[in-house]
């Protein structure tokens, strides 16, 4: 039985929720607005909300002065590469744990999760040293590997929970009909697993994009992604709010859009199936 809701109550709910929602979103909105102002308008008192001379100048300046595209490209390579590599390694593992579980499956899953809990700073120097030894410092391949490894437990977990929802009987039926393991994976499992793999890909791309411990500590000029590019604005130089806003907007816009598609996966991916 659904509760009857008066229009009045619904109106109050709506106003309250929108007010809170806009308040929480405001810093992002304000950053986007500021990115279209001139530097003088950006610090105007009283603050200018919508009525100012909209300009795209800051975006051009940011690109020109710091070669934004290079950082963007590094972010795409690092986030995309680490996620794809992680998926390639995790799919077989998650598949076998979901469909051929053994007594140790649970322990292995929990152990994998425990590696995610290792505080990065505790292993900072060894990784730094290994990176120097193998010439990986400030390279994209080095970051692809490290970020793949820190997200691998989440990728395995997410895929595992998705795969477990695929009824095993279907696979058995395919096996009965004489499908080989390869055919079983290719023609039966894959089509059913694609949505789960896509969701995993999406969330982990976002996590990799925003990763800001290893990307700050293991890169300098060459392989720095957007996280490090933004950090370079931490020492202010004259008026820079509009430029900072433009750079920030460019760094977060793609992920905000992807993020809106992945809200549901967020719960699954970050609570390891403990909240449903």
């Amino acid at each position: 039985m659904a509760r009857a809701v008066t229009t009045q109550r619904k109106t109050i709910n709506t106003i309250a929720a929108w007010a809170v929602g806009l308040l929480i979103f405001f810093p992002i909105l304000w950053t986007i607005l500021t990115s279209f102002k001139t530097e003088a308008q950006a610090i105007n008192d009283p603050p200018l909300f919508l009525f100012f001379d909209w300009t795209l100048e800051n975006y051009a300046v940011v690109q020109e002065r710091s070669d934004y595209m290079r950082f963007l490209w590094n972010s795409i390579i690092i986030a995309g590469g680490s996620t794809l590599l992680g998926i390639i390694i995790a799919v077989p593992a998650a598949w076998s744990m979901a469909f051929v579980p053994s007594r140790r499956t649970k322990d292995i899953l929990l152990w994998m999760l425990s590696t995610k809990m290792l505080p990065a700073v505790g292993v900072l120097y060894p990784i730094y040293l290994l990176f120097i030894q193998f010439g990986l410092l400030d390279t994209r391949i080095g970051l692809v590997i490290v970020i793949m490894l820190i997200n691998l437990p989440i990728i395995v977990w997410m895929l595992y929970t998705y795969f477990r929802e695929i009824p095993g009987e279907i696979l058995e039926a395919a096996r009965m009909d004489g499908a080989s393991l390869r055919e079983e994976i290719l023609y039966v499992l894959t089509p059913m697993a694609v949505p789960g793999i896509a969701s995993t890909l999406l969330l982990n791309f976002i996590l990799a994009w925003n990763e800001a411990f290893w990307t700050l500590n293991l890169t300098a000029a060459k392989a720095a992604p957007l996280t490090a590019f933004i950090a370079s604005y931490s020492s202010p130089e004259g008026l820079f709010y509009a430029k900072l806003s433009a750079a920030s907007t460019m760094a977060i816009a793609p992920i905000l859009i992807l993020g809106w598609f992945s809200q549901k996966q967020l719960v699954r991916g970050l609570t390891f199936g403990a909240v449903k």
Partner: protein
Amino acid sequence: MATQHSRSAARMMMAPAVVLLLGWMLVPLIMTLWFSFRRYMPLRPDIEPGWVGFDNYVRFVTSSSFWPSVQVTLITVGGALAITIVFGVLLAMLLDQPMWGQGVVRILVIAPFFVMPTVSALVWKNIFMDPINGLLAHLWRFFGADPVVWLSDVPLLSLILIVSWQWLPFATLILLTAIQSLDSEQLEAAEMDGAPPLKRFWFIILPHLSRAITIVILIQTIFLLSIFAEIFVTTGGAFGTRTLTYLIFQRVLESQNVGLGSAGGVYAIILANIVAIFLMRIVGKNLDA
């Protein structure tokens, strides 16, 4: 059901992930342990590297910056947890109500989670918290008050605000998911029996949420213990915002006192593991179900 053949195939398929994670865990861990027992300062060639036993462990906890950093860590994590849980529960209950445009509001609320840490820290630091040109300074002046010099006068509060803004969406989303699984008939029955809203909240909603709250606390604690970029780009550890994580980072990379920093790293690992054990128990139980 599974044949011997498929079992060995399964083991083969698991091998790459297991081997990689095992290497990722063991190699740096053993190296950190090794360094933690040694005197090792790569930037000071005049100081001979050597075996010092537990010296680094003792020196790390007896150094004058250790207890302040523990305090800062506890205040930051505790503060951010309190804010995100309290407001997360309230917000989740609000978002669970019938309203117009629920989907859009949800998106607005979740958005901060997708903002990269360096962006949110710098935007807050400059565009909002700057004592001269920041938006909050404008607001304060509008009401005739003296603007707060956020990051140097109330640095911890500022840090907690920034971090809470980033993590509130996560808490809200998880708690909202949990609230939506609450049987509404139970609430209706309580309402009909005349239970006032506060009692309904205390005796029905909160107990139902307790598990989700526990999970949010555990997961956030693990992430909050290791916040880095937010401090790196705002104060750089100055003004008493040096958390344990940041202290270790400074020891290891800035002053390259690797032995001392590694001992600190071992402490951080032990601390994180204490939290992790509780989280793993809950997750493990859920796997059986």
